[in-house]
């Protein structure tokens, strides 16, 4: 028994002509809490469904706790707790019955069930709803019940598919709190498209896009991966130090003239101002030049900020192209040098 808990090698999955996963390789070691990130339809759920033996890969293999997902599905599932997207539960059962049902299927005896139930109720905060029908619960509570059923047999590995989607911010924070709590002594693979959650709960992230792993590593490494640093510049649109108030295009042209600035875009703002976001190289700092530009033009600078912390930009960088495709844009307009122009957008049914 090694301490590699989840291992995939060359995992591919096709749905008809659609390639949902394309040669996915990664490992999750014991005790890690890994965020599995990607835009909708990137292949997160498909990967998780393969790992839980719900569907089979078209090619490649995966091992969970040392068991092959194809050859020993029951052994794999025994070691797993799985929470599918949107926590589909039997709405006609109450929480107690449901947890008892899953524990019976998992072969827990009555006394062990009682002991685990106590623990799960405590960790997931289910005490108040134990006797209630699942159909009457709010989404947040259903998510907790789903988490509870995944934990009832104390599995070494947890796979959670978007455990925080559709939740309100309070519920989100609570579910994340439980996950962090559970993560202290479990291996967790957690999918989401919300980066803030990954930053809060995980130490490592795997980013997938269009069925491929585009980044894998500790959060800090991933942040540095694209080499981009973001700058935010806000300029007053009503007045200027010299001359007349600047127009958007004027500022944009000015920013373009700066050496190393790329991907300049206008951000919406509630202030009476022009707000821009641009990227610069990791190696240098553009702030001085930005300042000089503003002074030279005589604009009123309201804000100048350099941002290296956000995973958000990295994520957008790495998964760029997905969205353009949705809007009907061509595959090879600009920087997208993908070699599989015939590849349709990987669609994963929810």
């Amino acid at each position: 028994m090694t301490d590699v808990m989840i291992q995939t090698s060359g995992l591919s999955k096709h749905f008809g002509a659609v390639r949902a996963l394309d040669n996915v390789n990664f490992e999750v070691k014991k005790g890690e809490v890994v965020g599995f990130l990607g835009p909708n339809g990137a292949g997160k759920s498909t990967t998780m469904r393969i790992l839980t033996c719900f569907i089979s890969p078209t090619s490649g293999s995966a091992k969970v706790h040392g068991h092959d997902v194809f050859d020993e599905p029951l052994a794999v599932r025994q070691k797993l707790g799985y929470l599918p997207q949107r926590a589909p539960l039997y709405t006609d059962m109450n929480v107690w019955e449901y947890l008892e049902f899953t524990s019976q299927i998992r072969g827990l005896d009555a006394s062990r069930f009682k002991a685990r139930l106590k623990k799960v109720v405590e960790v997931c905060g289910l005490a108040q709803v134990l006797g209630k029908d699942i159909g009457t619960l709010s989404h947040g509570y259903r998510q907790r019940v789903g988490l509870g059923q995944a934990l009832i047999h104390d599995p070494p590995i947890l796979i959670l598919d978007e455990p925080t989607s559709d939740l309100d911010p309070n519920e989100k924070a609570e579910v994340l709190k439980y996950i962090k709590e559970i993560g202290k002594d479990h291996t967790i693979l957690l999918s989401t498209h919300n980066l803030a959650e990954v930053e809060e709960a995980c130490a490592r992230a795997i980013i997938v896009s269009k069925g491929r792993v585009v980044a894998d590593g500790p959060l800090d490494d991933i942040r540095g991966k694209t080499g981009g640093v973001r700058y935010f510049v806000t300029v007053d649109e009503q007045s200027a130090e010299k001359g007349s108030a600047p127009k958007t295009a004027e500022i944009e042209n000015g920013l373009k003239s700066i050496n190393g600035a790329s991907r300049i875009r206008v951000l919406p703002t509630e202030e009476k101002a022009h707000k821009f976001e641009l990227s610069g190289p990791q190696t240098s700092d553009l702030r001085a030049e930005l300042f000089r530009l503003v002074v030279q033009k005589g604009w009123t600078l309201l804000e100048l900020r350099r941002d290296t912390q956000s995973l958000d930009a990295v994520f957008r960088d790495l998964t760029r192209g997905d969205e353009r495709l949705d809007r009907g844009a061509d595959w090879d307009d600009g920087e997208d040098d993908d070699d599989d122009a015939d590849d349709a957008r990987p669609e994963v049914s929810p």
Partner: protein
Amino acid sequence: MSAMTTIAKREFRSNFDSPLAYVVICLSFLGLGLLFFLYRGGFWQLDRSSVAGIFDYAPLGLALLVVPVVTMRLLAEERRSGTLEMLITLPVSDSDVILGKYFGALSLVLTVILATLAYPIAMFMWPWSLGPLDWGPVFAGYFGLVLFAAAATAIGLLITALTESQAIAFFVTVFVLAVLWFMGPGAELFSGGMAHVLEYVSFQTRLEGFSRGLIDTRDVVYFLSVTAVCLAVAFRALERRKWA
């Protein structure tokens, strides 16, 4: 307790969480009562101590109402709501799921069938005794009814395994079972080989012998084969999700 029995138990119990099962059971008993006692003079006109009427009407009620209603939810609803994913990713094999669902549904259908035993018991044993009843054909008839229910439920399970919609599962099951039933009477319209085939396949002709007290191995094997084939195909249909 094995995973299969756990699933079967849950399935059986879940029928009583919605009013549907109660409504169906009540309706089927009301229908059977009306047909048995009143339709074309019914039992009274017959003027014989026989409950053969039950075996004329009960299979139709089962085929057109009880079995489709009980089986339509089994997999279609789970597939639609996503609970199937939750269920299958528990440590259960696909055959556990299929057999658990099957026996869960079959137990409800058998409960309905066994409840009709109240007719012969109440009429000929206690509290009334309307005459000397020959119990042989009654038991043979019930044996046939159970075999028929087993096959019909397997057909319903197969159909629900193929669709995501309960409504479609219901109507297709009603249609298939009705066709299998009325093939027998319909065979009169044809002649020669065609009529032969229709009669051979029809559930109605297969059941006729039982209510007369005749247990023919061929009929028994026929119903059991239909059951086994449908369960096997349903199993493949469930497994198909892996490769779709």
